[in-house]
């Protein structure tokens, strides 16, 4: 699993990247009440908006950590947004993207680097 400074995580399986927000981000947001996931088929570029996650008091953009085509969105979140709080780095994933460039993945932080980054906040 890799991480960004905007608190997204990416897990790679073949050329399919599963994307979500980190446990730290979920904690900071508070109770998640709604997630706007992208439509499958949409092409996203790294750094662009991929999804929107809403708590009661804030709406935050989730950026695509990598470029590619969205092949699946986590439909279960529409009925159970609390999954993002309960299992942020598991069942609370947002979308799956077919990766265009694997080097993008490799350039992201690993767990140790992300943890070190969190220490600086």
């Amino acid at each position: 699993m890799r991480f960004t400074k905007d608190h997204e995580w990416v897990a790679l399986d073949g050329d399919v990247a599963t994307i979500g927000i980190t446990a730290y981000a979920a904690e900071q947001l508070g109770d998640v009440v709604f997630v706007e996931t992208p439509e499958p088929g949409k092409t996203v570029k790294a750094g662009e908006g991929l999804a929107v996650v809403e708590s009661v008091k804030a709406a935050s953009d989730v950026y695509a950590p990598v470029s590619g085509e969205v092949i699946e969105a986590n439909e279960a979140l529409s009925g159970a947004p609390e999954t993002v709080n309960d299992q942020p780095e598991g069942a609370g994933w947002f979308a799956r993207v077919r990766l265009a460039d694997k080097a993008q993945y490799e350039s992201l932080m690993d767990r140790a680097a992300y943890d070190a980054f969190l220490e600086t906040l």
Partner: protein
Amino acid sequence: MSLNNVGRPTRPTPAASTAHTSLTGARGLLQDEALIFEMGGWDKTGVDLAPADLDASDLGDLVRTAPIGLPGLSEPETVRHYVRLSQKNHAIDLALYPLGSCTMKHNPRLNEKLARLPGFADLHPMSPVSTVQGALALMDRLAHWLKTMTAMPAVALSPKAGAHGELCGLLTIKAAHEAKGQSHRRIVLVPTSAHGTNPATAAFVGYDVAEIAQTEDGRVDLADLEAKLSTDVAAIMVTNPNTCGLFERDIIEIARLTHAVGAYFYCDGANFNAIVGRVRPGDLGVDAMHINLHKTFSTPHGGGGPGAGPVVLSEALAPFAPAPWVVSDSKGFRLVEDTVDEASAGFGRMVAFHGQMGMFVRAYAYMLSHGADGLRQVAEDAVLNANYVKARLSGAMSAAFPDGPCMHEALFDDHWLEGSGITTLDFAKAMIDEGFHPMTMYFPLVVHGAMLIEPTETESLQELDRFCDALLALAAARAGDVERFTGAPYLAPLKRLDETLAARKPKLRWLAEA
């Protein structure tokens, strides 16, 4: 002696426990009130109508056949339902209502009476112009007062609220740029401390929003403004006094810099109540400013409206004002309702008809009551009251900008709560138990855990002291009595409400149990 030992006890007996719940859900006189949909009045009505030929066969299958789902109540049930509900609300008529930026001041009842005169309340907007001369005269006089108080040559009366006034102002600016062949200007600059309506309005009319930084002392950062001003900028939107309750000392320079790149200066006039009668925005270089009649000129907030947001305009922008407007000649007043036949570059129309007449009547009555001298006193007392609150609370709470005076509102941060286990929200909710509405919280965004207190000029010194004493007592209680805050409110009609549940599983209407 004759010993009288009959009758009721005349002293309370000591209460067994302070925690007590009723069997019905009521709390003494405070009733647990059902929804009208749960009262079973599906075939009931509280009106008696004249008998009519109740045939609509000419409309054939355009007539609805299925039930609508609207319950009815008799008149006594209706009165009781709404009076019971009303008792669950706080109101300015009950106590100081210190919502910063919202200006909750006394609403004179004379204004309510006058707005209900049939000549205003029962007047149709399309009634022939000869039958509405008094209404047009009132609009004309209101306009004169607004223009004189602001030193601006024109006013568009029709916007229906502050945000609608912002929309009107930016549309005027957009039309002015278009007329000059300056449509390429795409950027509106907004300080980070601005009301949410400012960026929302700019985006709504298709502008890109860029933020201007704020200085350490809570004002627009001139260097940052200068760096961001360019010939791509259409306008800046600056609130003055700003949302930190501070007067923008450099405002004349801000206007000059803005005009130097050909942009216009939109002033958010939400806080005009702090300077009315002492400062005229026209003397500061403002091109457009909305005036919330429901703030500065005391038309009631009504639980969230209606408001009114007339926009005063500079010479440069006046030709682009929207329809309608009032003109007069020897035959009297008339309304220009369509710009086709008029020599005007008006950008269009903000609303059907002519604006919030009911609010115009109330605001004009308020202005006449105060007069030029009283309106000046309004600003002075509003500022005096805010500074008094700031002075009394500063020992216990941390003022966000301790140096120098504030204007009509005093801003505190949550620095003084650090380590107490109490948040701004907790503190605010504890105020409810002491009989006060909380102040504005977590706004402006530039101050951490912000608490923005606006007492207004209609509070007496006794009420200010009562309020300050309550807050100081709470502040003193924060050590060792955390539950007083984290569990608050204890004494309101309801305990804290679950906003997460409301947002996760939205129930936005009543539905019959399946």
